[in-house]
């Protein structure tokens, strides 16, 4: 889309006075198109009617500044110079009829405009890049490991230590009193309670043993007593699932140790309201009483039904 009616006679006729813009550092330019664009754009000339003679002269003057140690990129500039000279020569030749749209500068103008547009796009990309760099995705702030304690500089001086040491009061070795809390629930009582309960029935629920005692200490001691009796092989404990009822079973085969018969009755036998199973408030409620795995048809019978009971001692 080059301007079709280029007035060739005017080419090169609009020379500007000052040539100061020519004092350019060739390093600043990223190639011949960049330099050419600079020359065109800084002289306020119509890019479609480039005064080719003048621009060519300026371009040649500028690339004379390329030092001999910068020859690596000089080829591209020289190639452009050659193109410019070629165009200049073509412009001097008379054009034939029907060739108006074949301005010799057309291709160069194409390239310049295209290059200029790429420059504009580059600037937009640069802006977009900067804007994007301000937003962070996950993982851009990795956690820093805590430095080793031995690597941390210690600010404490010996004077600090000494000062504190002077203030230390040594305890009087004569004054050594210990306070011990009284155990107000005895394990022996609980053992008797259990043995007593098992004298009546072949098995008893742990929760039934707690009826009438609100204090947690009673539950703890009852459990300890149960474990102790179990250790002495006087009974065994069974619980089917966690948090389900804990059952205490009389241990039958200890023939030489008839349960509870030789013992004194419990000193403090709680009233066990039969049928009403009161549960201490801190105990988790039981969702569903599981079927006793070793249930005997007659609870009061001394004889469990089969041998399943015997070796499963806790």
């Amino acid at each position, binding site marked *: 889309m080059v301007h079709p009616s280029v007035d060739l006679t005017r080419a090169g006729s609009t020379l500007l006075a000052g040539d100061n813009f020519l004092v350019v550092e060739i390093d600043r330019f*990223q190639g011949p198109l960049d330099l050419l664009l600079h020359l065109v754009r800084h002289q306020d000339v119509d890019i479609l009617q480039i005064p080719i003679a003048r621009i060519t002269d300026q371009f040649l003057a500028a690339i004379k500044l390329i030092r001999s140690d910068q020859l690596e990129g000089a080829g591209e500039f020289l190639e452009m110079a050659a193109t410019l000279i070629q165009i200049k020569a073509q412009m001097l030749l008379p054009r034939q009829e029907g060739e108006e749209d074949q301005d010799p500068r057309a291709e160069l103008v194409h390239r310049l405009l295209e290059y200029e547009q790429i420059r504009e796009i580059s600037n937009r990309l640069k802006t977009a890049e900067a804007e994007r760099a301000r937003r962070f995705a996950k993982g851009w702030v990795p956690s820093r490991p805590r430095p080793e304690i031995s690597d941390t500089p210690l600010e404490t001086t010996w004077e600090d230590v000494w000062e504190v040491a002077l203030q230390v009061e040594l305890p009087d070795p004569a004054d050594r009193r210990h306070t011990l809390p009284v155990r107000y629930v005895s394990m022996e009582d609980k053992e008797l309670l259990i043995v007593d309960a098992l004298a009546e029935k072949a098995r008893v629920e742990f929760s039934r043993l707690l009826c009438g005692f609100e204090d947690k200490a009673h539950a703890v001691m009852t459990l300890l007593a149960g474990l102790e009796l179990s250790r002495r092989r006087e009974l065994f404990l069974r619980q089917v699932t966690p948090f389900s009822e804990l059952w205490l079973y009389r241990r039958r085969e200890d023939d030489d140790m008839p349960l509870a018969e030789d013992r004194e009755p419990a000193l403090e036998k709680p009233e066990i309201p039969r049928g009403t199973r009161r549960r201490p408030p801190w105990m988790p409620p039981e969702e569903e009483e599981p079927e006793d795995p070793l249930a005997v048809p007659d609870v009061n019978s001394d004889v469990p039904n089969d041998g399943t009971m015997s070796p499963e001692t806790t």
Partner: protein
Amino acid sequence: MNITQIVEAVLFASDAPLKAEEIARADGSLDEDIVEEAIRALQAQYGESERSFQVVELAEGFQILTRAEFAPYLERFDTVPRPSRLSGPALETLAIIAYRQPIGRIEVEYVRGVACGGVIRTLQDRALVDVVARGEGIGRPLLYGTTQRFLNHFGFRVINDLPRVEELPVVLREGTPLGAEEEAVATAEPDHG
């Protein structure tokens, strides 16, 4: 647990943009439309509650990114890699490839007027461009195009997000001669060499 939360969890756990169809794989009840709807809900939620991050449409997918105004605070951490900016020549080369892809090195060099082999290699190393095809000309030259990472790096959703040629202040010839010209240049090249 609702669908929006599932989408949020997936986005939160990801350190790269995810396509809607990828997010939809998280659960059988999801499809692309549902995911996009959920993302819109999240965007509204985050906006209302003034979160420091947003769900951003990026590189053909979605990602949770902090809002730009928090950059000064995040940049204070010395563990945050200082984002490296592309040089002028790299940007120019990238711009040409972005608008004219797939494009060979010779054509890029023609537009810029200088050799671009090294710059293209750098861009390739940074995974901003890649070889996407081979040309038809002599020697079947490599043709380059931009990558997902290019979109992410510049914060574009899709390639069409690039500023449109009509919006640019500079007039440019149409991009159509690309194919023909490519051939011509590519064919002509061995003569020069």
